[in-house]
Each structure stands twice: as C-alpha cells, then as structure tokens.
C-alpha cells in the first residue's frame, strides 16, 4: 500500500491538506445522513440496514469489494433507487425516498461509473447542460433570443467557462465529447456535475480505468473542487490508494452491510475490512 501511495505521490498532498484544515477547509455539521436504509431487488439484498452520515465540506468515501452495494448506495442518495426501509436526511429535509429531479434541485449532483455524457455534443455544451436547472427563461424567450434569455445565456456561459478553466480543458472546449480519450471524458463529466453548483457531489468511481497520470490529475481536481468550491464530496472508489489519500472518512460496505466507518487509518487497520478485501478462510 505504501508503494501505491508513494507512486501516486499524493501522501504529502494529503498531509498538507490535513494540516491546512486548521485555517482553510472547515468541516461542518452533518449535511446528509442515511438512516437504516435497506434496499432489495427481489431476493437480492443490495443494502441492509446501512446508516452513515456526511458532514459539510468533507470528502467521504464509500468502499467495498465488487457487489458490496456501493453504487446502489449512491443511487439511493440521488433518488435513482428507492429503498424499502430507512430514511435519508438532507439538510433540514427528511425523505423516505428521494426522486432524482428533487435531489438535483436540492443540490446533489453526480457522475457515473460508465460515463453518461452526450457524445455528439461539444465539451462546452455538455457542461452547459449542467446549468439546466438554473435556467429560468421559458421556451419562447429562448427561441426568440429575447433580452432576458440573452443575459441568462451570458451568465451561464461564464459559469461554464469558469469550470472549463478550473478543470483545464480549454483546449477541447469545442471538441465533441465522443472523440475524447476516457480520462478527459471523466473530467468533462465532473465539469458538468460542477456546473450545477452542487452542495454535495457524488462521484461513482471517478478514477476507474485510468492510468497513473490520469489518476493523479483526477485526485488533484477532486481535492481542488473540495477546497475551492467547498463542495462536499461522496465518492466510490476501487483504488484503495486513492481513497486513503484523499478522503476524510471512509465507510466500508460488504455484502450490503456496513462493516466499518471511520478515518482512513482506522479503516485500514480494521480486521473486518482486511478480511473483506483479502478474503478469509472459514
């Protein structure tokens, strides 16, 4: 593990951030909490009685072996799946289940494990779609390019351009997304999610399938987003090195149950986690 961390060159970054917490990033109150959530598809119990919380401004990781229920958890959080039991609390509001558009309106944005961008559209247009919920002008105003529509377009374009600048993808602004390499598509997807100015950002395996350099870049961007915009981040990740380095707290799922929850160091030394990852003889 130490080698992985070294290779990623992130250890020092993570430490610097930990040190920076005192004056820069302040981790706040609980913003999102999941209480006793259970989700089943027919007989398959994807999640069983899972509870955890996410605090404002923190980077919260959900890890676990294949099929542990990580993506299901994320899908519950933004309303794609509706749990049979349990409650989700976001800020002041409490839900038995959330609906996707409601989640988006509340300020939850996400990226997908298998990139879900509009392949034929340019990077800029894809990022602009992330602004959709913020657009107030009606169809007629937009079609006729009336004053308010124009002002609004300028404002949203500016916001999109700021994100493009932030993620350093200016050079592909006009490139159709389908033509881009995988690592850049992931970055564009992050950009689109950011365009919604979310309070909470859900990242589903943001580093999956990337090479070392792309992973490094992505880690840097995730940390930057968290630092610069103060966005709370919930991420699922396979790469343990990445998780341990950039997250503040980690939840570990296995067979749909929560088996550990705590700081990266606590989780790392937890026997149940080691067993889940390395297997155990019965």
């Amino acid at each position, binding site marked *: 593990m130490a080698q992985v961390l070294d290779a990623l060159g992130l250890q020092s970054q993570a430490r610097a951030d930990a040190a*920076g917490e005192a*004056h*820069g990033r302040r981790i706040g109150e609980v913003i999102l909490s999941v209480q006793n959530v259970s989700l089943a598809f027919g007989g398959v119990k994807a999640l069983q009685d899972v509870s955890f919380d996410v605090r404002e401004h923190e980077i919260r990781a959900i890890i676990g072996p294949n099929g542990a229920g990580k993506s299901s958890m994320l899908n519950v959080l933004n309303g794609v799946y509706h749990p049979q039991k349990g409650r989700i609390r976001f800020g002041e509001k409490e839900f038995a289940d959330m609906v996707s558009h409601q989640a988006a309106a509340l300020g939850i944005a996400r990226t997908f494990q298998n990139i879900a961008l509009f392949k034929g559209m340019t990077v*800029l247009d894809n990022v602009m779609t992330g602004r959709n919920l913020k657009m107030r002008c009606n169809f007629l105003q937009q079609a006729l390019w009336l004053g308010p529509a124009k002002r609004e377009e300028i404002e949203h*374009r500016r916001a999109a351009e700021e994100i493009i600048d932030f993620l350093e993808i*200016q*050079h592909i602004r006009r490139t159709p997304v389908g033509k881009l390499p995988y690592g850049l598509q992931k970055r564009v997807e992050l950009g689109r999610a950011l365009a919604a100015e979310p309070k909470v950002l859900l990242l589903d395996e943001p580093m999956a399938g990337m090479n070392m350099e792309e992973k490094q870049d992505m880690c840097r961007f995730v940390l930057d987003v968290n*630092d610069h915009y103060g966005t709370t981040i919930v991420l699922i990740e396979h790469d343990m090195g990445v998780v341990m380095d950039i997250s503040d707290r980690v939840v570990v799922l296995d067979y749909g149950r929560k088996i550990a929850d705590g700081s990266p160091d606590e989780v790392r030394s937890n026997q149940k986690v080691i067993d889940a990852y390395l297997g155990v003889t019965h």
Partner: protein
Amino acid sequence: MAVGTLDTFPKLLMHHAHARGGRPAIREKDLGIWQTWTWKRFADEVRALACGLAAEGFRRGEHLAIVGDNRPRIYAAVCAAQCLGGIPVPLYQDAVASELVFPFQNAEIRFAIVEDQEQVDKLLEILPQCPTLKRIFYDDSRGMRHYTQPQLSSYEKLLQKVDGAFIDAEIGKGSGSDTAAMFFTSGTTGVPKGVVLTHHALIDRARAVAEMEKLTDRDVVLAFMPPAWIGQNIFSYAQPLVAGYCICCPESAETVVADMREIAPSYYFAPPRIFEALLTQVSVRMEDAGAFKRWLYRYFMGVAKRVGTRILEGKEVSLLDRVLYNLGDLSVYGPLRNVLGMSKVRIAYTGGEAIGPDLFTFYRSLGINLKQLYGSTETSVFVCIQPDGQVKSDTVGPAVPGVELKFTPERELLIRSPGLFKEYYKNPQATAEAKDAEGWFHTGDAGYIDQDGHVRIIDRAKDVGKLADGTLFAPKYLENKLKFFPYIKEAVAFGADRDRVCAFINIDMEAVANWAEKRNLAYSGYTDLAQQDPVYQLVAECFEQVNADLARDPELATSQIHRFLILHKELDADDEELTRTRKVRRRFIAEKYGSLVEALYEGKNSIHVEARVRYEDGRTGTFSADLKIRDAKTFPVEAIRKAA
C-alpha cells in the same frame, strides 16, 4: 515628445497611453473570450504595480524575478520594474526548481512576481538556497488559500494605491543607458550567464527593424514562446512599445493553434521547430484525408514547389503556372494558411537555429512571407534579416542597418552593433572572452558572406569538425536534413575525427504512431514502438534519401550517414539533453550515451542499455532495453554524378 527620442520603455508606454490610449495593447483569451487591455489600461496597471513594488521596498537598480507564461500581468511586471529603475529578470516558466537557483543567487534577487501556484511551489522549494528572496507575489490565487508563508502575497495587493506624481518622477529619472533587463542564456554549455541589456540597446534594435519592416500600430502578434526567451521579449515587449502594436496571449499552451487561427497575427516569429511541428501536423492530417483530397494536395503542392516562391517574390512565371497557382490558392494554399492561422501574416521570421531548406520553401511556396533572421540574446536579437525579395533558404540575409560584421580566419562571425549587451552579470571573465576591447562580439557561429552579401551560417564554430580524412563535418546541417522528415523528431550526428558519420534518432511519436496505426502495428509506448523493425525500415528510408542528397554535393558526400540507432527515450530538457529552447546538447549526449556511440562504430547490431530517467515531477527511475543498430544505404559519389 516624438517617439523617436524616448529612451526608456516606461517612457514609451506613457507615450502610447497618451497617443493611442484606446487602442488595444494586449489581448488575453480568458474564459473563452479575448479580453482586451488598452494602452491606457496597461499603463494604469503598470503605474499601480510600480507604486506597490516601491511601497514594498523595491529599489532602483534592484532585480525583479518574473516567472510565468505570456500574460498581460507578466508584461506589466516587466515594465513596472523598469519604471522604478529596476531590472526585470524573466525566467523560464517550465524550468525545474533547481534551475531557478542560479539566477536568484547570482543576482541576489529579493522580489519575485510569479504567475501561479506551480511557480510559487518552485520558489518555496529553493527558498533555503536563496536566502535573499524576501517577497513572492502571485497573480493567480487558485490553490493558494492554504499557503501561510510570510514571503507570499498576492499581485492584487500591490495595486492598492497609486501615487501619480511619484511614479512620473521615477519614470523621469530613467535614461537609455540604464539596464533594461537581464536574460539568462539557456546555457548550451556550462552555467547560465545573465546577459545585461540596456534600454538603448533593445530600443535601438527594435526601432531599426520596425522601420525596416514598416511595423505600425495595426500589426498583431501572438505571444506563445516563453517570455524569458529574448526572441519572445523583443516581439511581445520591446517592439510593441516601439511600434505600438497589439500582442495576444493564448489561453493555454494547448490552445495555441486554435488561438492563432482566431487572432490571425500579421507579424510572426517562431523557431524552426514550431514550423516543423506545424508541417508534421499538416502531413499527418493529409495522410488521413480521402484519396481525392490527398491527390489535390500533392498535385498543388507540386505546383507551389515549382513556382510558389517565384510568385511570392514577384518574379516572372508562365501564364499556365500562374493560373494553376491561383487554382491551388483557392483549393489548397488559402485554406491551409487559414488552418495554420497565417492568412494575415505579412512578415514571418524564423531564427534561433538553422531551418531545413525544404521546410523553409514549403511555407514560402504557400505564399507566406517567411524570412530568416539571425541574432542572439547578446545582440538584442536583430543582427541579420533577409529583406523582402532577397530571401534564400541557406542564408540569414545581410546585416540590419547599424550592424557591422566581420569574420575571423577560423570563420567565426564577429559583430559590432548598438544592440550589443553591456556585460555578463558578475562575470567579467566571460564578458572579456565574448566581447573584445574594440567592442566586437564573438558569436561562436561559423559562416561566411556569399556573393550577394548575405551571411551564411554553417554551424557552431566549435561544432564544425573534420572527419578523419580531413573533409568537412557539419553535424547540425546533417541533423536538420534528417529532422525535415515528419517521422524524425530529433537527430544527433557524430563523426568528428572519425572515419564516417553515424547518428542517433528520436522518432516523432505523433507521426510514427499514426503511421503504425495504419499498418496495424501494435506497441505499448515510445520505447516499444521505436524498436520495431518496420519503424527502423521507415527511418532507414529517410536516411537513404538524405545520403542520396549528400552524395550529390562533393563537399558533403563524405558526410553520408552510415549507421544509426533509434534512442530508447525522447531527448528531454529535464534530462539536460536539450536546452530549454530545445537545441540538442551534442557533447552532453555523446558523453551520456558513450557506450551507444561506441556500439555504432564497433559494428554491433544491437546494444543493451540501462537508463535513468527523470519524470516531470522530479522523481527518477531506471529501465533497460535492447536497442537495434542498423546500416543506412550510402551512395558512391561518382555513381550519382554519372547518373546526374
């Protein structure tokens, strides 16, 4: 006051702010939009910045380090230092931290203005070695929130208060004989040297060429080379301040090509490698085009090669050729110029290195007025320029007005000009070696003046060697010939005091990868691709053509290249194999890869290498590979002569 009598850059700036305050001085593409700074805005920014620096304790005669890419504020920093009688020291923004130590120690620099977090990190890293450094001001505050070092402060904070009377008085105190800037030479050999240039030297040269080329305030330049390079500084600082034209800063290094197309500059300067890279891109894209387009391109490029340069120079050509060329202009040359962002280029220069004749002719035949110039940091760039209508591919033109030239018996070029540097900073010995008592600067370049009065540079004087049989060996000439092929990115030729010439090659990853893809050739990376037999075959064909060419020239026939190998890694400035301006450091490479050179001459067919590589973040690693060595086909001199 007339512009012609203004003797410092700040005075020129104030003149433009007054005379053309509303005209654009600098444009920068930011957030997808070209944002304009007028001359007045530029002057206001400079004045405010100068006041801020003075308040921080920046004194007359002191050095200010400036590290960053082309940004309006980087240029404002240059001028602000000059307003206070200080000396801006632009440093390469892509230099690794250790390379920045020397300038800071050498000039005992206390103040630095840098672009962003990346540069701040480097300066903080070298802080222990540079105890004089007291203040670092950064422009872009992104990622800077957690930095608490007492040395750090934002550029923004320097702009708080403006004391107009104070700054006017400070600007008034400046005179032409003051030092305007210090540039550290890239150091092809040994330690870098700080070249001290006065306002007078820079302004005189900038003015001489502005008059010669009739530059006006309607010209536009794209600033995309490092500002620490004297060439970029002359074109995006000295000359705009003399002529009042506008410079444009691209959005990022990756967007230069697109930004250039949007801006369509009228005045352009780039070293040969940029022209080479552009041509490679065009060639690769043409390979991908459909059969008809490829035919169209080949046919009309043939026409252009035959008559293009003659038409550009206004010489006589047959009516049929003229019609064909016009057709070509409609279908190929015009669109191609547009893609290259050169549709409005009135004057384009290349310099810094010799340019391959075919490469040079390619651009000229498209109707782009590409000319060669000759100069160096020590001469404020402009020594020789080819005047319109007298352009030749193998010379650098006659001396610019004001420059005197002569040659030593060893063919070394000596220069005397008002643009000469004052000294190498704190290095009287090097100064004395480079500039003799009568004021002649020893360029270190070998060449001669041809029958038309044009200077022809063959090579570096110390590199021009002899083969064992006493015939001329000019390595750079050979390397340039090789590098014209799109598949070859870098070449290093060996042969001094040996019986024959051999060479190292770096393939051009972009071009060869594309070629390999078409042939379903699988590879895992540069090293793997470089060592594949078909790639060797491809490169061998390039060598064969070069050798056939050389065999036709009795002077150079013995320089035919007998054996070659493709290096396992790309030569890199981070490994000190190239200078920051990407010139190969032949001696360093010969030493570092001594065993490979020997293998070339011993007749081996492969050699095992273990190499240490340095990654971009400064870490090092080792890896090993087996390199193949191949013979290139050579030609007997006589046979070719008979055939021809």
